[in-house]
């Protein structure tokens, strides 16, 4: 069944090419059916191949000795695939309604499918070279989505996105070089491919390389000091902001950081050195800073974008704790945050597309006209704030526990930042809800319901998933234990 991995990567790309046909792209209903069908087929293939088949690594290409393109699936791949395979078709449905508002659907959906294939590639990447290749492709495939409107603002955002991403990838490239020179250069293994038999100077050089690469891959996860592209990119259409900039692309960044730390360099080499503490400090700064800046934003999408910045660093903070529990915690928060944040963005997008309102001070009383949207928004907010028994609580709990086990002063500072950020999270989300439910003039907006065909059911479905993720958290955790270790 190994060919299915290749299928999951190439099929969406081929389907994207199909959209060049006028026959398909000319008819909106046909277009919708085609895109959703392709996404659904790919998701089913992905889920089947990762959860029901035993896969051996497949090498597709040999460049030179030891430098090859390999596909493989392990536990961490499953976590990432779970995110993209569930969210992609749902976002497609949401985008049907939303993109009527934006226009340019054939182009949008073509790149949307293309990105799906690339993301699958990232999930299945079996070594650093393959990961790097798909990582670069992801930047290029999503650039047209960010710049979809093609006005000057979109151009600005696109340029910034491109610059940051390429710079990050260049830093990431350093890690490939060193891992191939000093490591076995083989596929990813939990514990690293580098070994530990280095003299002190080499080990330090490797740590410097790791730190640079961590920041390089961390760019996609909006790690301080390279977070600015993410809020800027919120000029993109909401499905892009929601899926790519809250779930897929940014999670790919975190995913790459995990691959780099746990599966390439290995925690043995890094733990207790500057290579652990410098990224950790950056993550802590991002956690606090992101939340603080989120509270400053009056613009709803930017508020959520900064919130994403902060939450991604929860994952990166957990990654830098460098223990098995921390790895599980990182995966847990990756899952939880993906589902929660996409629901929040969908809510904001729904407000934007139905009422043209994008600022906090404009949404007073809107809950009356968008009851389902705000209902889902409320549940997702509670989940992100960490109200038990919703998943945000459990993921933060495990992160905190992992940090507590570490016991150093920096992890403890991280816990403090986590608390502080949780407090701010409550503030910046509750202020949205309080405006919507309790407007200044005391009047909940009455009038016709504004919800659209596909948006409301998608939001409700996501909420159900979030709640399930919270209630069956114990099972989810044992699954993660099973997959990862």
């Amino acid at each position, binding site marked *: 069944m190994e060919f299915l991995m290749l299928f999951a990567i190439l099929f969406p790309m081929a389907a994207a090419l199909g959209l060049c046909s006028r026959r398909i792209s000319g008819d909106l209903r046909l277009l919708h059916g085609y895109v959703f069908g392709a996404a659904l087929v790919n998701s089913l293939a992905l889920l089947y191949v990762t959860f029901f088949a035993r896969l051996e690594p497949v090498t597709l290409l040999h460049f030179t000795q030891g430098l090859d393109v390999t596909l493989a699936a392990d536990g961490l791949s499953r976590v990432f695939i779970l995110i993209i395979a569930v969210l992609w078709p749902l976002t497609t449905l949401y985008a049907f309604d939303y993109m009527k508002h934006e226009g340019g659907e054939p182009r949008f959906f073509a790149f949307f499918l293309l990105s799906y294939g690339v993301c699958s590639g990232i999930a299945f990447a079996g070594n650093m070279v393959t990961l790097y290749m798909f990582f670069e492709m992801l930047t290029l495939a999503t650039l047209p989505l960010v*710049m979809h409107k*093609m006005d*000057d*603002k979109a*151009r*600005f*955002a*696109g*340029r*910034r996105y*491109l*610059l940051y991403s*390429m*710079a990050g990838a*260049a*830093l990431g*490239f*350093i890690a490939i*070089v*060193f891992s191939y020179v000093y490591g076995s250069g083989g596929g990813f293994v939990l514990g690293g491919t580098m070994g530990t038999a280095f003299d002190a*100077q*080499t080990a330090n*050089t490797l740590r*410097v*390389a790791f730190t*640079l690469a961590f920041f390089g891959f961390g760019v996609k996860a909006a790690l301080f000091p390279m977070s600015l592209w993410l809020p*800027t990119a919120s*000029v993109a259409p909401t499905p892009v902001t929601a899926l790519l900039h809250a779930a897929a692309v940014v999670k790919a960044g975190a995913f790459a950081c995990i691959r780099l730390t746990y599966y390439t360099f290995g925690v043995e080499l890094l733990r207790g050195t500057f290579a652990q503490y410098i990224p950790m400090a950056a993550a802590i700064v991002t956690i606090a800073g992101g939340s*603080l800046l989120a*509270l*400053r*934003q*009056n*613009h709803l999408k*930017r508020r959520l974008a900064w919130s994403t910045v902060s939450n991604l660093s929860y994952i990166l903070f957990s990654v830098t704790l460098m223990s098995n529990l921390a790895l599980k915690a990182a995966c847990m928060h990756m899952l939880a945050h993906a589902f929660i944040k996409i629901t929040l963005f969908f809510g904001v997008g729904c407000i934007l597309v139905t009422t043209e309102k994008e*600022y906090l*001070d404009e949404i007073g009383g809107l809950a009356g006209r968008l009851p389902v949207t705000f209902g889902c928004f409320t549940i997702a907010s509670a989940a992100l704030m960490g109200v038990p028994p919703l998943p945000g609580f459990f993921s933060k709990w495990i992160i905190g526990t992992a940090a507590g086990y570490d016991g150093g002063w920096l992890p403890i500072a991280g816990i403090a930042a986590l608390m502080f950020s949780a407090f701010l999270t409550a503030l910046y989300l509750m202020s949205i809800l309080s405006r919507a439910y309790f407007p200044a003039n005391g009047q909940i907006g009455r009038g016709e319901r504004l919800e659209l065909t596909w948006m409301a059911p998608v939001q409700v479905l996501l909420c159900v998933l979030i709640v399930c993720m919270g209630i069956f958290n114990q099972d989810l955790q044992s699954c993660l234990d099973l997959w990862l270790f």
Partner: protein
Amino acid sequence: MLMKTEYLLPLCVLLPMAAAPVVYSLRRRSARLGDGAVTLVCLAVLAAALYLARMPACRLAVPDLFLQGVSFASGGVRSLFGLLCAFMFTMSSLADPAYFRGEPRCARYDAFLLLTLGGILGVFYAGDLFTLYICFETMSLASWVWVAHNETEAAQKAADTYLAMAMIGGLVMLYGLFRLQHMLGTLDLGALPELAAACGDRQGLFLSACCLLVGFGIKAGMYPFHVWLPKAHPAAPAPSSALLSGILTKSGVFGILLIITCLLWGDRRLSMILLALGTVTMVLGAVLAVFSVDLKRTLACSSLSQIGFILVGAAMLTTGEETALAAGGIVAHALNHGLTKLVLFIAAGVLYKHKHTLDLNELQGAGRSCLPLKICFLLGAMSLAGVPGFGGYVSKTLLHESIVEQIHLASGSAAGLLEGVEWAFLISGGLTAAYMTKLFVKLFVQKPRSAGHPVRIDKGSLTAIAPAAAALLLMGLRPAQTYEKIAAFTAESLRSAPFAVHYFSLENLKGAAISLTIGALVYLLFVRGLLTDHRTGDYVRATALIDLEDDVYRPLLGLTAFAGAFAARLAYSLTDLVVRLGAALMNYKAPQRVKPGEDHHFGRYSKEYVRVGAISQTLQFELMLFGIGVVVTLVYLMFKL
């Protein structure tokens, strides 16, 4: 013997409490059945109390109940007060059917009557201060229902005051108990005297005892905690007024006796406090009673005054020297006062039931035609006034003698002070005679204004008051066989010895003569002269110069609440200020509207060459710079190897 005597102790407490709900449902079904049940329970308790008083002192401890464990004890002054209590409740319950005929909510009254009975017996029979506290609070809360029972506006206000005072007293007392438990390690009344005597921290012990004194003083009606009493007693139904005045105040007195005997035996400071407050209470109550034109209010103020007499006796007892007369006087006066108030209040209830007013001027001559009532009232009044041959004379003589004795013991300014107290004592006695004369003449001698239905006393009420009235006279005639026996019975529990006094000696009769002369003068000159409107014959309604509750306590409470709220608001607004400051800093120049950056050139296809300002603006330039950086880093790393 099937049952040990000590099991009767918790039975006395629990039986009325357990019977309360049963009586409630019975009384709702049938008035006769309910009233019968109440009397039956009271009689059972009376029988038990009598048996307990006849048997030697005993105690019972239940260690594991209510965390601390509860315990009960009998003997001495406990048994006497328990007996008095059971007797008064029984008698009062006999007067209930007539008084409550046709009134609503009687079932509630009966149920809470029994609850209070259980509570108050628990106070008297408590073996440790913890048990006492529980029962004391039960009693306070249950009797609150009596005060509020009539549900009139005055009753509501009186009940509010009563509850507030009871709560404050209870909490202060609890604090004192915590301190005692901490200092002495036990609250067992049997062990306390030795431990307290051996306690090194006299100041701490004194403060704890003062906390208890506040709690008990409120219940006893001691100045300045008396404010609830003249309002609450008249507001309650007459049978319960008799109990509130006659026995509930005694629970406070009992508590104060415990403080004296168990905690601060021979403490001069406590003695001075009790002497000062007792004297003020004694004089103040009497003066208020002289001015009052409300029947039950007069009686309530009289209660205040009599409690003052007892407190002065308690002050004499506290000195710890030559205490026999003081101890006997306290016990005798408590007994007399209970019986007297039973008679007077129930008589007042009979009058109220017929005339539906308590105003003396409107009640003029109301009881004139009812001879049994007249006789009973006269007996009670004469006893209270301290006429020789009545119980009141005996107890007042004992108290007076104890003061005289202390004067002999004291020297210098202390003796002068005590002589002042002695005069206050005699004058208060005179005032007692004056206001009782005033009441009796107004109600039973003067002719009624208008002919109405003549007042008749029902059998129940007569049965309730006649024995008490007769007892006051009979016991007063043979004090050596009655009061001295009772005093001897309680002497040991009050740490004093039996005694014998010539009650009808010239010396003692002189005190009574002075008092009665003062009384006659006050009545003739002041009451008949100044307080009577000579055209109508009405008593003039005097307005109080100052009401301690309305002019001091309530404003003080309001001020405290205001100050507390003000401080709290200030404190919270400080937090708010910090939050606002933080928010202001946070949102300093926050963009209300986002102006996203714009780029006109990136990713644009154009037919002609577009000149892009400086080279530094191009993407290529930025990428090149970054590329150089990466190359330098790589070279450096390679070089380092």
